[in-house]
């Protein structure tokens, strides 16, 4: 089966600019996650969707970050305006079943964002 697709692979912007990332989860997966991974650290959950509804966005800096998952398939994550500390890899993941259930997540390769 095809994996989680993300684009772009790399993005370099200046602070205060806007940026958007796109994710296409594995076909049929109900739950989609966006994680932020700062260099040298483990991934940190930003937002979790079940189908097209948000179930957890407690760690999302809502003053500058937004995300949507229209039609319960693809998702976009936006940062506006970007700050230097937003430099990180943004990982998208999906899992097959809706919660609550224990199962593994499948990750995309991520988008590496550099804010100058």
């Amino acid at each position: 089966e095809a994996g989680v697709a993300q684009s772009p692979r790399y993005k370099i912007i200046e602070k205060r600019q806007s940026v958007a990332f796109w994710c296409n989860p594995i076909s049929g997966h109900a739950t989609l996650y966006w994680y932020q991974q700062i260099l040298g650290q483990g991934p940190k959950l930003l937002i979790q969707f079940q189908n097209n509804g948000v179930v957890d966005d407690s760690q999302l800096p809502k003053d500058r970050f937004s995300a949507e998952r229209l039609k319960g398939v693809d998702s976009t994550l936006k940062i506006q305006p970007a700050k230097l500390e937003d430099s990180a890899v943004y990982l998208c993941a999906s899992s097959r079943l809706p919660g609550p259930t224990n199962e593994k997540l499948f990750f995309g390769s991520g988008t590496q964002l550099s804010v100058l």
Partner: protein
Amino acid sequence: GENVGLHLPTLSVQEGDNSIINCAYSNSASDYFIWYKQESGKGPQFIIDIRSNMDKRQGQRVTVLLNKTVKHLSLQIAATQPGDSAVYFCAENTVSGGYNKLIFGAGTRLAVHP
């Protein structure tokens, strides 16, 4: 070792040796645990999982041990190969607001020397 900024704890082993990577988790209510492997420039890749009603699970060349008393998880890799070089993360699953939430540890870098 404790992860501080850019400096991941590193485990260096010789090819063919066994490796043991340790992880302390935080929530005694966590009921599911996963080990992920992350190679440079890639997303985390699932290795093995274990539910809290078990204390050991074996896969191909890998074994996960769970000690709930001290909230400790370990990953054992037998006959370590150069292709095992990567950063390894443990992740614990908790239920928050009725939904599963996977929380990752800081990671350990495994360096395999020929």
